Every structure is written in structure tokens, then in C-alpha cells.
């Protein structure tokens, strides 16, 4: 029994020593401080500033009206009045508008053929042409949404006229035009904006990546300075590796708890992003997310032999991880291989879970899969890290391991 208590107290003391040593290393390394504190706080602010406006408003378009008729002019006026586009140029020919498009002065062209009003007068289907700038999807989305909303409005107007000619008016005509109306409800981001969709994902990714990068740099620096994987107190050599791993993890955890509170709880409220999640669910979810990220970073970190390799690996993976998380490209449409590949990274589940709890108001029950996967990852990567450290401590036994 006495032995048992001795083990516990010495274990706790060792963990505490490693913990303080790791904190000392973090706070004396300018690069790591930059990544941990400046990076994790500056990036969200920059992203918040870049993606400040949810939607694109008043995109310049050119119109070419070969029909020169009342219906086409009405269409143009209504188009100009939509929030999405502004009719900045009225051109005489299509080639004139094309030149404007090539000069990038407009992002779309609306063309009315000369039979536009004739066809409407005859009661046939009139056609108008829309040319969209595809250099960015948001241009296309705005131009297309603007034109289709005017089209739907105009259609209703014309249909009412035609029914009136056939002798159907009032409520009867309304019912005849839309016998089964539908209303659309855009859940979780009513504006349908880019900001509410991308920035929460980026915030979670920033936490993951800065931690990954910081730990990678620390491991790389230790290796460059001739240590094994981490600098550990002398008396811990070849003894209970888990004390080293737990001690280091606690140091990172302590630093990241306030950072997560700022980035993932405070900033969505400051930026006016969706934040309908319950705080207790969020906190319960962040714990395995942080632990899994720490364990994952330490596992990968033990392969990093030089400080700057860590940076390059991290940078390179940032973009890949954003896509693997399934925020941009839906999970259901990922090739199977990449889907399972994405399970390797805590960011995948972290981002998914965070968005669903924070932006979609899900409870832990609905993110059960992600939650469990993060715990599994934490355990697994923790064990792998211990194993790797063990092997390395044996392999480099003769190397100086000092305080």
C-alpha cells in the first residue's frame, strides 16, 4: 500500500515537473509563442475581417436589349432593383457587352433577343440569355439568383395577365397559377451567406492547426538540439513514459482552454456568426477535441526531425484538412478512401461537431459519432505517442537528456 502511494505521489511530481518544464519551453520560444498566441488570435480576427460581408451585393452587370420593348425594360428595371446585381451598362450590341466582360467591368450579361416581347404577346415562351462570369462561384450565384428572382416575379405577372385574358381573375387565378405553393426555409443561416458557413470551420481549424504547428515546432527544436523527442528531467530517463506524455499534454491543454474559449465561444458572438449551441454541450465537446489534437500532434511531432519541417507539413495540410472536414465538399460525396483517410485527423470530427453544435444547435446525442471518434483518437494517439517515446528513449539512451 505504501508502495502504491509512493508511486502515485512520485508520478504526480514527475508529471508536474514535465508540465512546468514544457511551459518554460513554450514561453521561452518566440516562434512557438507567435504561433500559439498571436496565430490563434490573429488568424480569426483576419478571417473575420476578410469574410465580413455575408453576400455579394450590387454586382455590376450589362444588359443588351435587342427587343426594346416595355416588358424587357420592366425586367431590366426590376433587375436593377434586386440586392444582388446593379445594371451598370446598357449596351447596343452583344459584342460591346462582351468587351466589358473581358475588361472585367461587369460580371454578367443579360441579353434580350429581338423576339422577346413578340413571343410574350403571342402567349408563347420568351427566352432571355444570361452570361455568367465563372471566375468565382459567388459571382455566378449572385447573377443567377438576381435574374431568376426577377424572372419568377415577371412570370407570375404575365401569367396573371394571360389568365385574365382567358377570363380567370382574382383568387381563382392565383390558385390556378400556383396550385401547390411551397415556402422555403433556410435553416441555420438565414442569409445563406458565405461568412456563417466558412468562418466557424476556419475557427476550429485554426485551433487544430496552431496547436499542431506549435507542438511540431517544439518537437523539431528538441530534436535539432540533440534531444530525443522531448526534453525531460534527468531522473525520468527510461522510466514511465506516460508521465512525460501526460505532463506535456497538460501544459498544452492549460494554454489552449482560454484560447478555445476566445476563438470558439466568444468570437462567434462578437462576429455575429450563428451561435445557437448550448454551452455545456460545447464544453463537453471541446475536451476530447483538444485532447485528440494534442495526442495527434505529439504523435506526428515525434517524426519531425527539424523545426521547419513541422511548419511545412502543417501549412501543406491546412488546405487539405479543410476539404477533408466535409464543410466545403459534402461528406456523402467523398470518395470512400478519402473519407476513411479523413478519420485519421481530429480536425475532421472537431470541425463537424463544432459546426453542428454551434451553428445548427445539435445536442451531444446528435454528434455522438464525432464525439466518440474524438475519444477513440485521443486514446489511440496517446498510446502511440507513449510507444514511440518508449522506443526512442531506448534507441537514444546514450544521448544527453537533461533539464
Amino acid at each position, binding site marked *: 500500500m505504501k508502495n502504491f502511494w509512493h508511486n502515485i505521489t512520485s508520478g504526480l511530481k514527475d508529471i508536474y515537473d514535465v508540465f512546468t518544464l514544457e511551459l518554460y519551453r513554450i514561453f521561452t520560444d518566440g516562434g512557438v509563442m507567435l504561433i500559439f498566441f498571436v496565430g490563434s488570435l490573429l488568424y480569426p480576427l483576419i478571417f473575420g475581417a476578410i469574410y465580413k460581408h455575408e453576400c455579394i451585393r450590387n454586382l455590376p452587370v450589362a444588359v443588351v436589349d435587342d427587343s426594346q420593348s416595355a416588358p424587357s425594360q420592366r425586367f431590366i428595371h426590376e433587375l436593377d432593383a434586386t440586392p444582388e446585381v446593379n445594371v451598370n451598362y446598357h449596351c447596343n450590341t452583344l459584342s460591346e457587352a462582351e468587351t466589358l466582360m473581358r475588361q472585367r467591368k461587369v460580371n454578367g450579361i443579360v441579353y434580350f433577343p429581338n423576339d422577346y416581347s413578340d413571343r*410574350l404577346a403571342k402567349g408563347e415562351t420568351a427566352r432571355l440569355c444570361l452570361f455568367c462570369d465563372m471566375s468565382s462561384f459567388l459571382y455566378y450565384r449572385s447573377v443567377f439568383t438576381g435574374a431568376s428572382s426577377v424572372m419568377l416575379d415577371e412570370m407570375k405577372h404575365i401569367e396573371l395577365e394571360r389568365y385574365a385574358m382567358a377570363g380567370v381573375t382574382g383568387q381563382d387565378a392565383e390558385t390556378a397559377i400556383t396550385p401547390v405553393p411551397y415556402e422555403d426555409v433556410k435553416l441555420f443561416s438565414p442569409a445563406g451567406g458565405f461568412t456563417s458557413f466558412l468562418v466557424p470551420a476556419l475557427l476550429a481549424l485554426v485551433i487544430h492547426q496552431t496547436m499542431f504547428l506549435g507542438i511540431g515546432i517544439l518537437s523539431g527544436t528538441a530534436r535539432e538540439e540533440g534531444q530525443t523527442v522531448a526534453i525531460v528531467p534527468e531522473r525520468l530517463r527510461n522510466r514511465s513514459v506516460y508521465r512525460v506524455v501526460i505532463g506535456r499534454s497538460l501544459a498544452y491543454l492549460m494554454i489552449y482552454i482560454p484560447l478555445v474559449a476566445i476563438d470558439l465561444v466568444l468570437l462567434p458572438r462578437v462576429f455575429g456568426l450563428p451561435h445557437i449551441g448550448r454551452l455545456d454541450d460545447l464544453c463537453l465537446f471541446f475536451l476530447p477535441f483538444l485532447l485528440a489534437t494534442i495526442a495527434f500532434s505529439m504523435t506526428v511531432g515525434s517524426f519531425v526531425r527539424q523545426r521547419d519541417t513541422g511548419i511545412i507539413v502543417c501549412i501543406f495540410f491546412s488546405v487539405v484538412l479543410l476539404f477533408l472536414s466535409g464543410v466545403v465538399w459534402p461528406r456523402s460525396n467523398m470518395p470512400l478512401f478519402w473519407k476513411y483517410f479523413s478519420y485519421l485527423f481530429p480536425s475532421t470530427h472537431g470541425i*463537424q461537431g463544432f459546426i453542428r453544435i454551434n451553428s445548427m444547435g445539435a445536442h451531444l446525442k446528435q454528434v455522438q459519432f464525432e464525439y466518440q471518434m474524438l475519444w477513440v483518437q485521443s486514446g489511440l494517439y496517446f498510446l502511440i505517442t507513449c510507444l514511440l517515446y518508449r522506443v526512442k528513449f531506448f534507441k537514444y539512451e546514450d544521448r544527453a537528456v537533461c533539464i
Partner: protein
Amino acid sequence: MKHLWNCFCRELGLIKESPRYLILLTAGILFSYVFFLTFMHEGQPENLPIAVVDQDGSYLSRRLCHEIDATQGVDVVAVYNSHSEAREAMQRQEIFAFLDIPAGTYSEVLDFKTPHLALYSNNAYLLAGTLSYKTLSTIGKLTSAAVQREVMRKKGYSEDQIMGMIQPIEIDAHLISNPWGSYLPYVLTTMLPGIIGVMALLLTVYLVTNEYKLKTEKIWLSTAGDNMLNALIGKLLPYTCWFTLIGIIGNIVMFGFSHFVCLGSFFALSVALLLFVMAMQAMGVFLAGLIPDQHLAVSVAAIYGMLSFSMSGFSYPVVSMSPALQAFSYVFPLRHYYLTYADVAMFGATFTQYWSHLCLLLCFLMAGCIGGMLLNRWAKSNSNDAAIEC
């Protein structure tokens, strides 16, 4: 010229000695190409999972389910009895949208009353939510049109008249240079060269500061005849060639094998790529000159490099950013590469239209020169220190 050549040969020797970095970076770049080309091979997501909440359980609601299932864009994966079940499924991310058919819809249609359908889409996932919404709203319109057509047929209208009544206006959309509305050319054409550029930037910062860290800057400079410009060009030229070559091969894969549209000259695009790589390297030299500490310099370069993707404006247009950020976007070479790409490949522009972007890319070389001057000063002060110590 001889000195430059000497410096070039020295760098090749260094690469031969420890090719680890170059291999790592090249492997990373190749991985990104393979990853992105296979990851989104569909171009536009198809068969997105959606659900129907069928509270009506009628002939009409069943038929609607089948019609929806038959469209290319979505796939009905579940039929729920209540709205809350569907919402929970959405929160579990099993579905991206659902159509709510209230009880009594069919009988109301038969009675010439107006039943209301409701369409819910998940906008927290923009692409999937928007696409499934688009498909479902088409179905919604078609439902009305189908009922309308039946009524008018019974009233004795001709098919042409019916079409004119149902659809008085039609939009014929032309998506310039991306007729499929595919996601691939939109993301990859800028992002993949961007990754190459960021790699070139980081490598440049690392290599230049490494000379100072290992205190080999004197040997390096003397190989180049004590001329910093020669030394930098000689040192960075092998990487310029290598990264540009990979970029051009990548463009051949994208525009050749994957059939992305390139209306203008491929040569112009390659020149832009070369200038882009050089601009990123010049920024690397600038940062290395500005921050003598290697670790800090690489960290700062990493932060700057990562911002290139957002600031290039290929996903979120720069015109929607605040004026200060719009001005800031000029210091990112990827922005100018993206603009050149859009001009050349999407609009088939001629040199008179895109020359300004190329000129701006060339301007970055000035930053490289400033960085060179700073590096020169470091080298001199280092040798002075060494002399004092002696």
C-alpha cells in the same frame, strides 16, 4: 555570369548532398494534385442525401417522392413521419434538406384549395445546402406546373398554349468557360499553383536564413563574387526552374487531361506561373532579409503564405472585402496569378489586357532586391563581428 553559374552549381551540390527538403516538398505538391483531382472528381456533387416528411401518405406524396428520387441532384434516403425526426437527421448530417408534405395535401389539390409544401435546406453547409435546395425548389415548381397542366388540358387548351401559360419566360444561362458549373476548375486552377507558391516561399526563407544560421554566408557570397544579386539568383534558380516545371506539368494535367477550359494561350499561363514562383521567392528573400532569426522568419512566412489563399479572391471576391483589405490584397502574388488565369483561360484575353497583372508580379522582384540589400548588410555586420572577435 561566371559567378552566377558557380553559385548555381554550388546549390545543385547542396541539393545533391541533402535532397530531403526538395523531395518532401515535391511529394507534398504531388499529393495535393492527386488529392484534389480525385477528391472532387464529380465536379458538382450529385445524389445529395435528402429526406421527405410524408404526413399525407397519399398517391400524390408518393409520386413526389419518386420524382424527387429520380432527379440527378438528390437522393431520397429516408421518409420520416414528423418534422422533428427530419430536423434531428439534419443535425446528424444524414440529410442536407427535406420536403415537408402536410397531411391532406392531395385532397386539397383535388378540391382546388391551395395546400402548402415546405422546403427546408441546411445552409450551414453552403454547397450541399444550396444544391439540394435548388433541386427541391425545381420539383416544387414542377409540382405546381403539373397540376396546372392537368387542369388546362381538361379545359381544352393546346399544348403550346399550356406551355406559354406555365412558363412564359425561360432563362438560357451560359456559364462562361465552365459550362458544367463544376467545382473543380474553380478551386484547383488557383489553389494548386498557390500551394506550389507557398512551398517556394517557405523553402526560400529557410534556405537563405540557413546560410546565416550555419555561418556559411561568406562562402556563399565569395562563390558569387561578393555580389548579393548573383548569389541570390544562383541559389534560387534551381528551385525556380523546378517549381515552375511542376506547375506547368500540373497545368497540362488540368487543362489537358481533365479538360478544364483554357481559351487563351497556354504559354501565357506558363509565363504567369514562372513570374508567380519568382514573386513568391522574392517575397521569401524579403522576409529573410527583414527577420534575421530563422525560426521567426519561417513562422512569419507561414502566416503570410496561408493568407494568400483567402486574399487571392478566388473563393470570396476581393471586391466584397473592406477597402483596406482590397489594397492589402495587392501584396499577395497569388492574387495577380489568379487574375491572369481568369483573363487568359476563362476570357481568352490577349496580352494588351493582362499585361498589367504580369507587371505587378514583376514588381515583387523589387521586394526581393530590398531583401537582398538587407541580407548584404547582415552579412557585412556578421563579418565585422567576426573581425572584432579575432
